[in-house]
């Protein structure tokens, strides 16, 4: 029975790992890159005003603009960036001439001018690959299943790998299959807590969507009713009577005092109406929980109506789980730790996939598994590198420029897949690594100065070295 249990766990580890391994690799690698999504997105729009601006300044600029453009709209939304000197201003409803329309644009928080930045989607396509493989709701379910398989792989992996602590640091290099297994074990064992946390908290981002049973029983499946039971910023209908909106600045000071942190977003419901409401949301970058505290004010008088900074323990717990996944809480140090742990995840999955082909000898090297391994493990880094290079190479005024960047990402990945299906040799691995290094090199040279460019350069060096070592290894 015991030996049987061990065998069935090996079987489960192996097959669930193979079937979901490619999806998991894509999820892990894109997740690792988008640890720095804010920084990379700013890098991809170098025209953005670089210096961050105080929220007060951004708010004055925004209120001035909105009073002129849409004094009696349905809503205003003001989002001062914490990463560059812009402020996103959106509104919908009547404009100053009374026409019904809306606008959503990025403004310079100091001058109030529209920021003319190049059209780019930043890390959006990478995030989209990370949480739903760029394929909508179906992709989200695949990713959720993959998350479950990751947890399963970790549990069965611990069972399969019996001498888990004796082999703590062991990595026997240059011994073929044994080396790959050592690498797989080391990446798994040393970062086991991280792997558990990141897979479980990933599932905890949309929990009631993925496990609807409890919501069905408790609320008849009504998600909005569930959420409004513990998170309901004050709302009210427009009165139809006009009243001028009080200055927002004193309300901001009161909200900052009440919520005890940087304000991330400000919304005004029916400005210019006697029943206008101003809501402030606190940022969550300085704490584990991603629950955004809010404070609501009466628009005409500027008096605080209500606020929320506390949540029931279960809700707070799930907020912390989301925070642990997004890794915004601890500043740059923490994000680097997440980045390296994410690289270990990626390596864990990649070595697991490679064990499949290595174990079955070179004659299976032309098989579908080997081709998909090549296209995923080496192809995706090259496609991401192409995406970053395209950001600097495409003409700034190209129509649909942002879309073209994404097309280049997927076209170069498709090219890697095509190549992998036709020529799957060690040289192809080296070629894709060197290609990725070359493309990152272009992005570095054209990338200006700054930490993101430096990181791209280091990634180029790392991938280039790997590629060269592969060539040397293939010759030997």
């Amino acid at each position, binding site marked *: 029975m015991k030996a049987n249990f061990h065998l069935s766990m090996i079987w489960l580890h192996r097959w669930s790992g193979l079937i979901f391994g490619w999806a998991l690799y894509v999820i892990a690698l894109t997740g690792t890159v988008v640890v720095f999504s804010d920084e990379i997105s700013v890098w991809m729009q170098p025209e953005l005003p670089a210096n961050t601006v105080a929220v007060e300044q951004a708010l004055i600029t925004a209120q001035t603009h909105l009073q002129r453009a849409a004094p009696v709209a349905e809503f205003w939304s003001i989002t001062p960036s914490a990463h560059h000197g812009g402020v996103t201003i959106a509104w919908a409803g009547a404009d100053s001439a009374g026409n019904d329309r809306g606008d959503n644009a990025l403004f310079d928080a100091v001058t109030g001018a529209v920021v003319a930045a190049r059209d780019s989607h930043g890390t959006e396509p990478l995030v989209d690959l990370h949480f739903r493989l760029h394929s909508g709701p179906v992709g989200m379910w695949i990713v959720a299943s993959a998350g479950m398989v990751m947890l399963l792989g970790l549990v069965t992996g611990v069972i399969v790998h019996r001498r888990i602590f004796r082999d*703590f*640091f*062991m*990595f026997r*290099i*240059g011994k073929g299959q044994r080396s790959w297994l050592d690498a797989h074990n*080391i*990446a798994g064992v*040393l*970062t086991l*807590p*991280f792997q558990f946390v990141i897979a479980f908290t990933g599932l905890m981002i949309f929990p009631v969507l993925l496990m609807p049973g409890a919501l069905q029983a408790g609320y008849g499946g009504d998600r909005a009713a569930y959420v409004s039971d513990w998170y309901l910023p004050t709302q009210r209908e427009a009165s139809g009577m006009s009243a001028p909106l009080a200055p927002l600045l004193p309300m901001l000071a009161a909200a900052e005092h009440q919520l005890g942190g940087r304000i991330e977003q400000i919304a005004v419901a029916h400005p210019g109406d006697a029943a206008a409401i101003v809501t402030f949301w606190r940022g969550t970058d300085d*704490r*584990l929980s991603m629950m955004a505290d809010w404070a609501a004010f009466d628009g005409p008088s500027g008096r605080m109506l209500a606020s929320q900074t506390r949540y029931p323990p279960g809700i707070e717990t799930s907020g*912390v789980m989301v925070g*642990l996944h997004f890794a915004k*809480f*601890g500043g740059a*140090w*923490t994000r680097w*730790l*997440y980045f*390296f*742990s994410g690289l*270990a995840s990626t390596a864990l999955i990649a070595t697991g996939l490679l064990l499949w082909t290595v174990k079955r000898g070179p004659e299976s090297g032309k098989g579908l598994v080997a081709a998909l391994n090549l296209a995923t493990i080496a192809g995706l880094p090259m496609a991401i590198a192409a995406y970053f290079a395209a950001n600097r190479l495409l003409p700034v005024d190209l129509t649909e420029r942002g879309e073209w960047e994404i097309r280049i990402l997927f076209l170069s990945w498709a090219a890697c897949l095509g190549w992998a299906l036709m020529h799957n040799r060690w040289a192809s691995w080296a070629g894709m690594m060197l290609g990725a290094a070359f493309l990152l090199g272009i992005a570095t040279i054209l990338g200006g100065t700054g930490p993101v460019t430096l990181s791209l350069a280091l990634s180029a060096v790392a991938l280039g070295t790997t590629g060269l070592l592969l060539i040397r290894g293939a010759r030997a």
Partner: protein
Amino acid sequence: MIALTLLLATAGFLTLALSMQRHRRDLGRQGKPPRAMRPVAFLLIGLSVFPAVADQGLAIGITSWGMALSVCAMAVAAWLTVRSSWR
């Protein structure tokens, strides 16, 4: 302060490696490891939580510390690998 956490944790894992027969050889040391080595290693690893907590508060500090342990252990493993394969 986090740098201190990383330093202490790395030192701790290196000590742990030195307390293991096999990895002593990787690092070019002969003979049996002293018995006190392993407790010292765990002490160093445990102590490294304090700078992180002092810097980032209890909840975030402990989380960062956990992540730091993983990364430092990987760094030590990589160093041992390089040492043992070049010797």
